[in-house]
């Protein structure tokens, strides 16, 4: 019975990766990566019971925290850094 949830989570992760590759702005990519991380936590929890190894729950718990910290770090970088989301030609701009 865990197969249904596993397949649904895997399909959703694939869709999130497609959005992360397509995303016009950097925030779309951050949103997709955040959702991918959340789905990774769910997938670890489901797989722990699918394969009968409850040790994976520790990994899921750790990944939930690391994912949150990582998303906040990337957002802080995008917000305060000298970063233009959607301009490839501006990368040739003179650096200060």
């Amino acid at each position, binding site marked *: *019975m*865990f197969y*249904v*949830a596993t*397949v*649904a*989570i895997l*399909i*959703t*992760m*694939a*869709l*999130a990766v*497609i*959005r992360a590759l397509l995303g016009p*702005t950097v*925030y*779309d990519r*951050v*949103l*997709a990566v*955040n*959702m991918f991380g*959340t*789905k990774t*936590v*769910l997938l670890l*929890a*489901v797989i*722990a*019971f699918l394969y009968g190894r*409850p040790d994976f*729950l*520790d990994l*899921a*718990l750790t990944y*939930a*925290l690391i*994912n*949150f910290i990582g*998303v*906040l770090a990337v*957002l802080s970088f*995008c*917000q305060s850094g000298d970063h233009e*989301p959607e301009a490839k030609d501006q990368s040739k701009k003179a650096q200060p």
Partner: protein
Amino acid sequence: MALLLDVVSWILLSAGGAFVFIGGVGILRMPTIYTRMHAASVTDTMGTLLILLGIMLQAGLTLATVKLAAIVVFLLLTGPTASYALANAALLSGVRPELTTREPD
């Protein structure tokens, strides 16, 4: 009793999988960043709660249920915080929400 628990757990897992899939389609098909966040929040709350509750019913009263409850608490605390930070960063960087979808007549 065990059969009832199995049936309820299967229903919760299937419903959670359906919510997760709906959110995945929404994050791919929605037009702007804010509507995509709206779609992603479906998977962060409803999908997570239903799937982890279904697993909890399978685990019974063990240490695994405590860990799953901790995962639920962490996800429910960190999800809205990350969403707020994302929307705040997007708005401050100049991405404006589209308030109308078509030209007024």
